C-alpha cells in the first residue's frame, strides 16, 4: 500500500511526470525551432533545458486577475481540473513496468474518457471567462471535439481489438508476446489516424483552431494569466506526454525492449521515454508542416476522410483476426 502511494507521488507518479512533461515541452519547442531554422530556447540552463521551468515559475509569480465579468467558480476550477485530469490520465501510462500505476481491464476507455473531459474543461474555461474571443474559441473547441473524438477512439480501439485486450497494460503485453509492435501491419493506419487526431486533441497546428492567435487572439485561454495560465500550460505539457506515451505504448510496444538482466526497472523507463520521444518528434514534425485549417474544413476532413478510414480499419482488424 505504502509502496503504491509513494509510486503515485514520486516515481513514476506526479513528481516524475511533472519533470518529464517540462522536458517534453523543451524537446517540442527545440525541435520545432530547428525545423524552422531557428535556435529555439537556449538561455536558461544547458541547451535551454530549464526554459519551460523558468516560464512556469515566471507565470506563477505574476499577478492573479479575475475579470469582473467572469464566472469566478469556473475561472478558478477549470485550470485545476485541467491539470489534475491530465495528470490522472498519465497514471495509466506504463512507464516503470509493463502496466501503469493504475491498471485494470478496460482502462483504455477511461483514458479516452479523460481526454474528452479535458476538452469539455477547455470549453467551460472559455465560456466561463465571458470574453468574446474566449467564447468563440470555446465553441470551436467543442466543435472540434465532434470531429476528432470518434477517429481517435476508433484508432485506439482497433489496436485493442488486434491485441485482444482493452487495457493499456494488456496491449503492451500482447505486443511483447507477439514479438512485433502493433504499428507493423494494418495498425500503421491506426497510428496515422492517432497522430492526426492527437494533434487536434492537443490543439496544435494544423488544428489549433480554438486558440488561433491571428484570428481570435488566444481563443479560449485569452483571459487567463498568472498561475491559472501556468496550470493550463502544465496541463498541455502533461497532455503531450500522455498522448505521445499512449502512442508509444499502444503502437510501439511501450516499455518492452531487449533486456539486460538486473537492469529491468530502469530499462522500462528508458525504453518508454525513447519511444514516446519518437512519437513526440512526429507530432512536432506535423506541427511544422502545415497551415491552420478553418473549422469547417477540419470537420469536413475528419468526417469525410478520417472517420471512414477508422471504420475500415476496424473492419480490417476484425477480418484479419
Amino acid at each position: 500500500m505504502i509502496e503504491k502511494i509513494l509510486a503515485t507521488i514520486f516515481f513514476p507518479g506526479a513528481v516524475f511526470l511533472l519533470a518529464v512533461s517540462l522536458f517534453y515541452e523543451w524537446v517540442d519547442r527545440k525541435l520545432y525551432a530547428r525545423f524552422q531554422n531557428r535556435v529555439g530556447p537556449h538561455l536558461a540552463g544547458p541547451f535551454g533545458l530549464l526554459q519551460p521551468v523558468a516560464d512556469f515559475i515566471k507565470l506563477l509569480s505574476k499577478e492573479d486577475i479575475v475579470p469582473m465579468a467572469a464566472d469566478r467558480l469556473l475561472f478558478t476550477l477549470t485550470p485545476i481540473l485541467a491539470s489534475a485530469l491530465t495528470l490522472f490520465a498519465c497514471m495509466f501510462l506504463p512507464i516503470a513496468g509493463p502496466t501503469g500505476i493504475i491498471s485494470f481491464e478496460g482502462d483504455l476507455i477511461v483514458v479516452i474518457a479523460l481526454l474528452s473531459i479535458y476538452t469539455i474543461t477547455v470549453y467551460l474555461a472559455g465560456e466561463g471567462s465571458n470574453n468574446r474571443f474566449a467564447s468563440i474559441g470555446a465553441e470551436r473547441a467543442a466543435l472540434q471535439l465532434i470531429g476528432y473524438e470518434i477517429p481517435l477512439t476508433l484508432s485506439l480501439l482497433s489496436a485493442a481489438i488486434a491485441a485482444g485486450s482493452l487495457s493499456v497494460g494488456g496491449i503492451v503485453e500482447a505486443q511483447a508476446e507477439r514479438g512485433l509492435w502493433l504499428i507493423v501491419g494494418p495498425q500503421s493506419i491506426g497510428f496515422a489516424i492517432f497522430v492526426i487526431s492527437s494533434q487536434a486533441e492537443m490543439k496544435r497546428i494544423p488544428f489549433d483552431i480554438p486558440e488561433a492567435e491571428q484570428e481570435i487572439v488566444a481563443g479560449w485561454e485569452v483571459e487567463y494569466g498568472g498561475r491559472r495560465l501556468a496550470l493550463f500550460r502544465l496541463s498541455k505539457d502533461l497532455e503531450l506526454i500522455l498522448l505521445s506515451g499512449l502512442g508509444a505504448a499502444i503502437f510501439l510496444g511501450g516499455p518492452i525492449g531487449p533486456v539486460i538482466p538486473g537492469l529491468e526497472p530502469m530499462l522500462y523507463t528508458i525504453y518508454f521515454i525513447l519511444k514516446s520521444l519518437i512519437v513526440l518528434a512526429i507530432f512536432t514534425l506535423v506541427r511544422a508542416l502545415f497551415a491552420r485549417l478553418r473549422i469547417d474544413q477540419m470537420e469536413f476532413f475528419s468526417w469525410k476522410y478520417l472517420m471512414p478510414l477508422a471504420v475500415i480499419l476496424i473492419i480490417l482488424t476484425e477480418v484479419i483476426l
Partner: protein
Amino acid sequence: MSFEIPIGPQHPIHVEPLMLRLSVEGELIVDVDVDVSYIHRGIEKALEVRPYIQGLYLVERICGICNAAHSLCYCLNVEQLLGKEAPPRAKYLRIVVEELSRIHSHLLWLGHYFHTLGFETLFMYFWRDRERVMDMLELITGNRVTTAYNTIGGVRRDLTPEVEQKLRRTLDYIEERMRYYEKVIDSEPTILARTQGVGILKPSDAVRLGVVGPHLRASGIKHDVRLDDPYSGHDEIPFNVITWDTCDCYARVKVRVKEVHECVNMIRYALDHMPSGDYRLKIPPFFKAPPGESLSRVEAPRGELVHYSISDGSDRPYRYRVRTPTLANLLSVVEMLKSRDGYEVYIADVPAILGGIDPCICCSARVVVADEARRRRTVMTLDDIIRISRDRGVERR
C-alpha cells in the same frame, strides 16, 4: 442574432492600430466597419513647414517598408517642380534599389501572410531569406531599412563593382528560393484550402472601388504605373506585368511570388545595361522652387503611390498631399469581408483577407470623429479641424 467582435485596434495579426468591427452570426461575418483613425501623424502638415531637403527625410518615414518608393516619389515630384531630370545612371540605380525593396517588401508580406494563416515554418523561411535582401540594401545604400538612397537630382552613392558581384549572387539565391517556395505554395493542401476561393474581389468591383497594385493585378486587371507611366526609365527595361484571374487570396500570393521573379530580372537587366556618367545632379541643399504644382506617381510594393504638391515660390511646399496604396485598398476589404448569397466569409478568413491587401495603416490614417452617444462617425475636413481648434482656443481664453 449577431454578435460583435472587435478585431483591433490592438490585435496579434497587426502591429498597427486598425479597427474592424465585425458582426458575426456563428462563424459567418455579416457586416463589417473599418476604422483607421488611430494613428494620425500630421505628416502632410509637417512637410509644409520644412525646406524641401528636410522633407525628403520626413517623407521616407511615412512608411518603413515602402520608404524607397516614398522618397523616389518625393524626389520625382520636386525635380518636376524644378524642371530638372535625374541623369540616366541615377535612374537605373533608382530602379535597382526600388526593385530590391520591392523584393524585400514582397518577401516580408509573404512571410507575414503565411504567419496569419498559421503556417509558422514558412514565415520563418521567408524572413530568413529576406535578411539576405536587407544585407544587400545595406551594402548598396548604407542603411538596412530606411535606405535614404534617393535624393533630389539623383541618388546618394554609386554602385561599386564588388557590391554588384554580391548583388548578383544574392539575386541567384533569391530566384532559386522563390522557385522552391512556389512549388510549396502550389502543392501544400492546407495553404490551398485556406486561400483558394477566399476573399473574392471581382474585376468590376476592383475597378469600382479604386483598388491598386498587386491587389488589383490579382483581380486580373493589367495595371502598373511602371508600365502606364514610366517614371524612372522603366520604358527602357523590359518586364512583364503579372496578373492572375482567380481573384482570390491565392491569386494575391501568386502575383507577389511571380513579381519577385520579375524584380530579379529587372535588376539583372539594369545591372547589365547600366549607363555610365554622373549619378546625381549638383543641386544646392536649400533652394526655392518656382511656383506651380506637380504630381508624381510611383508603383510602390503595395500599389500606386501618389504625391501631389503646390509650390508658392518659397523654399517649402505650400501644400503637400500623399495618397498611399493602402487607403485605396481598404475599401475593398469591406466588400470582401461581407457574406452574401453563395459567398461565405468565416472569422478565420479575416486575417487571410485583410492580410491580402498588404495593409500599412500608419500611412493611411485620417481624422474621424466618433460620437458614441449618437453612434455616429464623420470624417472631418481640414477646415473643420482648423475651425474647431480656433473655437477651443477662444473658449480657453
